[in-house]
């Protein structure tokens, strides 16, 4: 009797493992959604005075958890650690302002864009840089591993003069800029304005826009988790049509809400 029971249990477990649960099932059954969020990237992600994560990406993760009916867990990941965090199974989804380049899409699954950045040039006032072209021949920097860092480094190579320096965090870029170690930086306009506004970095100002393509950013998950990616795409769609996207944009950034569609083409 007992052996039959054990055998039955074993059979049941092996049957259950045949009906393979995907990441979406796992998240719902575990009751927790673990989001990779960059908390060094205001206003998308940062910490308030009591060290609680706040920002657009944090709210977005919370909304996603609510939609899934689970608890959200914010896992802080600096930019270079987003993918290792996903690959090693520490997070389920990245809500980390990740640019959806084709090169990266060979490794992770990218959703449709959930946010779009314009690029701005911020300069040290003593450097004499007053426009994007003014950066030619100067020492410029950006946050390592970001879309704008890659684009700016290529631009410096194309100009053939000047130096590019990648710093590990956005805060270090603005610190270096404020100290005059670098003359100018390109960052997303939201980040530039947020940092200039804090007053932590004296002597810098936003001097113009950078003519890089609009930086569309998407959520990411494991490439093969179509069930989850499908849900995420629909979730982003709902965020926009329910007006929540515009609401969050107003709350954290303000101004004209960026369009998330590219005209004349389907995703």
């Amino acid at each position, binding site marked *: 009797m007992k052996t039959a029971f054990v055998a039955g249990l074993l059979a049941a477990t092996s049957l259950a493992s045949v009906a393979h649960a995907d990441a979406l099932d796992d998240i719902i059954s575990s009751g927790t959604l673990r989001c990779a969020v960059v908390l060094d990237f205001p206003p998308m992600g940062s910490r308030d005075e009591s060290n609680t994560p706040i920002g657009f990406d944090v709210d977005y993760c919370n909304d996603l958890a609510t939609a899934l009916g689970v608890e959200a867990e914010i896992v802080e990941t600096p930019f270079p650690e987003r993918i290792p965090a996903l690959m090693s199974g520490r997070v389920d989804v990245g809500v980390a302002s990740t640019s959806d380049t084709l090169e990266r899409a*060979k*490794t992770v699954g990218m959703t449709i864009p959930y946010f779009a950045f314009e690029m701005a040039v911020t300069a040290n006032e003593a450097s004499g840089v007053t426009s994007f072209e003014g950066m030619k021949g100067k020492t410029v920097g950006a946050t390592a591993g970001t879309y704008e*860092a890659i684009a700016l480094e290529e631009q410096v190579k194309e100009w053939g003069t000047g130096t*590019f320096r990648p710093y590990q965090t956005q805060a270090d870029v603005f610190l*270096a800029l404020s*100290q005059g*170690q670098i003359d100018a930086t390109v960052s997303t306009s939201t980040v530039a304005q947020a940092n200039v506004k804090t007053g932590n970095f004296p002597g810098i100002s936003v001097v113009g826009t950078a003519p890089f393509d609009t930086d569309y950013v998407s959520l990411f998950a494991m490439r093969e988790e179509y069930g989850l990616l499908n849900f995420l795409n629909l979730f982003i769609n709902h965020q926009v049509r329910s007006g929540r996207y515009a609401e969050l944009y107003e709350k954290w950034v303000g101004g004209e809400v960026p369009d998330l569609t590219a005209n004349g083409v389907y995703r």
Partner: protein
Amino acid sequence: MFNYNFRWNQALNALPQMLDGALVTLQIALLSMLIGVTVAVLLTMFRLSGNRILGGFATAWVELARNTPALFQIYMAHFGLGAFGIHLSPFTSLLAGIAFNNAGYLAENFRGALKAIPDTQARAARSLGMPATQAFRLIVMPQMFRVAFLPATNQMVWAILMTSLGVIVGMNTDLAGVTQELNARSFRTFEFFAIAAVIYYLIAKAVTLAAHAVAWRMFRY
């Protein structure tokens, strides 16, 4: 579960770039050792001099260098000095940070080595009529180097590995910097980091073996 398919062919295409980075790494480590040994000898002499100010300076250096993280030392060389308007390039900041660290550790190495040399050596030299400085330079120092040489190669290996901290001050031409950048572009983290680890290992191993060969040649009785 670890869910990742390795794509070595794509990563290996970047090998020439990474090897160029490895050269820069080795260059910084060698320079930092040269500076480190020079400063450490000075610090050792300061401590032996009996002069309070010089001795205090040397002790402060050794204490700071040995009891704070190298990360902090490099960061301070860049952003700390930057706050006072002294702007070092990432290369120089990294070199300065590691050289500072090396000097502190090597000074302790040398102090230990001096303890291993019998006082009678210096006394014999003095009784032969050598002035104190000459006795130190010709009799004590060569023996000190012999005792300290192999322990100092540890510091060289440590210096090589410390160069990877350069990324925090915007270093993008050394092995760690190049690796980070390749990773940011493609997200092929594990391939690039694995290759970098192998290169670091090979450099460190080569240095250790070379040091043993040199020691065998130079210091045999």
